[in-house]
């Protein structure tokens, strides 16, 4: 049963076209290692270099958003780079297009402003996304957001269609947030 259960898990991933799926606590070190494996795998599959760069960029921004904004987080005092946070990140291909999806638990009070930002970004056309990126990069102090807006805009900029996102309320205080971008 042990092997069968795990093989089924692996088959399920294969059928979904996944390159990898990570679920658990993620650190900056894991981000680097997963990103490295991702580049090597895509390169071995002879994926176009600019496509690899786009997928990698979406992966980095999503992974850093989990580390910085997941409600399930552990950080040593004043050592932001040692922070680990729980989330899910998946990279795969579907019908010849790559996708990167992420999910994490967050406080419901933080979900509202995030949803508004995501809706704004989703509804922009490519020229609008580019202009919004420029506006945010010039804004030297994004108080409280540790730069998240720019990361979300970067994801939309590398995507070939509008970003998808969803929220599932877990209880009165927490919600599960997830987003998916096709490159």
């Amino acid at each position, binding site marked *: 049963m042990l092997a069968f259960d795990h093989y089924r898990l692996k088959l399920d991933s294969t059928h979904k076209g996944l390159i990898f799926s990570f679920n658990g606590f993620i650190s900056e070190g894991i981000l680097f290692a997963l990103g490295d494996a991702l580049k090597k795998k895509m390169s071995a599959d002879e994926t176009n*270099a600019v496509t690899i*760069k786009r997928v990698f960029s979406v992966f980095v921004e999503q992974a850093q958003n989990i580390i910085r904004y997941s409600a399930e987080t552990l950080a040593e005092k004043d050592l932001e780079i040692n922070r680990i946070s729980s989330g899910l990140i998946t990279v795969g291909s579907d019908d010849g297009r790559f996708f990167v999806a992420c999910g994490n638990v967050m406080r419901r009070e933080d979900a509202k402003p995030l949803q508004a930002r995501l809706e704004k970004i989703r509804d922009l056309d490519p020229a609008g996304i580019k202009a919004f990126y420029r506006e945010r*990069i010039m804004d030297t102090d994004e108080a409280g957001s540790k730069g998240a807006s*720019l990361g979300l*805009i*970067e994801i939309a900029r590398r995507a070939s269609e509008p970003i998808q996102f969803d929220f599932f309320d877990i209880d009165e205080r927490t919600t599960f947030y997830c987003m998916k971008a096709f490159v």
Partner: protein
Amino acid sequence: MIPETTLPNTYLPARERSPEIDFRYSDNRLTMRGEAYPEDAASFFGPLLKEVAAHCAATQGQALTAEFQLIYFNTSSAKALMNLIQILEKAGLGGTQVHIRWLIQKDDDVMREFGEDFASELKHVQFQLLEL
């Protein structure tokens, strides 16, 4: 008399997540090559930006060449790069002849677009986008 910079040169070898930094203040030449997505972009770029600003203040009116050959940078690093570009623009406005060379791999439309974005912020700096 043209004041000369007193800053020592800064060299940082490329690491897994940070670019090679070769800032030769003695030659008025700054070079950055590689990938940039350090764990903490502020602590990596912060001291470098301070140095460049100090150098520009001390060498107003001279020539300065900044060469970027970047493969990838994340959004935290993009903010720092924009700050650096603005320091150079300010130096240009103050009379320094700043020349930025933005080197990209052929067909790299991501880095090309970033170069064009940065160039559009510049009025007092010569900006050159070059394909390798």
